[in-house]
């Protein structure tokens, strides 16, 4: 049983992995441990979990214009999420990091993915067409 949600494709490429839903905004500088991908920031809904290999679903990014560098560092350490889905419009720095690290990204999906997607659900993201496919 699969279904699809349409969003805005931001960074092209396709990737699949289990969903990790974080309800709070994420700051790539500080909220994640680069060497493990573990969420170390004060993000109650996802603290202690690893973003490595997941489709990371979150509302928006906060903070530094240096976010791109930390996303790229996750990639260089092999601890990066395989795809990004954000509820809000994209952040230029994160988009640049995602392009550099070949991480597909979709923004502004047409349904509230943070409320409806459960952690661990298999998700496939197509950053070109903006299609998010649930339950592979």
């Amino acid at each position, binding site marked *: 049983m699969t279904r699809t949600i349409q969003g805005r494709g931001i960074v092209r490429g396709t990737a699949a992995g289990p969903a990790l839903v974080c309800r709070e905004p994420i700051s790539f500088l500080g909220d994640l441990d*680069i060497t493990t991908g573990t969420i170390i920031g004060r993000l109650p809904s996802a603290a202690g979990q690893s973003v490595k290999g997941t489709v990371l679903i979150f509302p928006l990014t906060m903070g530094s214009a240096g976010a*791109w560098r930390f996303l790229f560092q996750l990639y260089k350490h092999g601890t990066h999420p395989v795809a990004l889905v954000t509820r809000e419009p994209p952040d230029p720095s994160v988009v640049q990091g995602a392009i550099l690290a070949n991480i597909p990204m979709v923004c502004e999906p047409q349904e509230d993915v943070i409320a409806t997607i459960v952690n661990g659900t298999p998700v496939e993201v197509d950053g070109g067409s903006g299609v998010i496919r649930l339950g592979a």
Partner: protein
Amino acid sequence: MQLSDDDKAMLDGSQGEARRLAMDGLVQLGRAFGAEDMVSIGYAHIHAGMAMYLHDVELMEELAARGATMAVPASVNIANADTVNWQQTGAPEKLARLQQRAASAQNKMGASCSFTCTPYWAGHWPTWNTHMTSIESTVTVFCNSVLGAKSNRDGFFAVYAGITGRYPRFGYHLDTNRVGTHRVRVETTPTTVSDFSCLGFHVGRLVGEGVPVFEGFTRRPTLDELDALGAALATSGGVALFIVPGVTPPYASVEQAFAGKIPRESITAAPRDIATVYDEFCSAKDGHFDLVHLGCPHASLEEMKSYAGLLAGKRIADGVELWVTTSRAVRNEALAAGLVATLEAAGAKIISDTCPISCHFARSASPDPKLGVVPPPLRAIVVESAKQAKYVRDMIRCDTLLTGTAEAVETALTGRFVPRRPA
């Protein structure tokens, strides 16, 4: 998105692999932000290739190896080690050698390897209406707000813009976004660069990514004060542009700054707001400190003169470490002017290419373990900049003691922390 014939030629690879890669990234960025076309830029302040981050210097080397060159004048942002005097900072030699490789790559690509967060003091001075790009938010806010150039707060893609000479037209490249959002009534009289830094930190927190319009300065702020104000606005908030009517081109009046619109919000900056920022960043309650730092953002020659004036003929207390950070270009000017000799005679170390938060002190970085980087166990750093203070807290993860420049020098001379004395 409307692309020129030249843009298309870059995109299809007929101008080489580096330009194809760069243009492909810029087009994706432009589509993400609804840009209608690309603008030609006149200047780029680009990523250094940072030795404290895994494979980051290699990223620049790979671009250079792919034949990337700068299509426009380009300066290079701050790096992770003093590439000449690293021993003075206690950095591992392997880290400094890796940082030197980034300099070689930059030279190959034709960028001016300035390794500084204040390239304008090193002679990179874009003028009114010049579209540009910058990886350093301090440079973005200075060039937008003091010089009237047009820049977004950028990330790595400042490099891609430098390679192509193009950037998607969105954000602060559109005049419709260069309009005030918040009216700021300055009800205090900041008298030092540190006061302006605290003022910026206070206002940045309130306006976020807005465009604050300042009213009520009793005199025209100096270039150093505007630099400190902008750096702090860009640190506590996401400010890319502030407007001081009569100073920021082309805004002659408050009405013009708001383009006839009603400001979203009016806020004030009172003496207690400035004092609050100083207090917040005086977290080392026992007054112990390991280092006194001057020069955030990297000092101008005027600031070097002021430090030399405060330290001339004196000697810092035994056991105190005093760092003055400035670009290599300004360091060379200061050397010729005899200022370096004065500062070193007083016991100060003049550090270039880096600063406390950018060097091997940072715990938020992720260097290759082979470099042997071990951040020293620092307890507190005395600073005169709210920007440095925030990142000492977040990146070095130690306490701070924020004070004025003269008081910081007095701290170094006496070995005892001197809090800021309000004017």
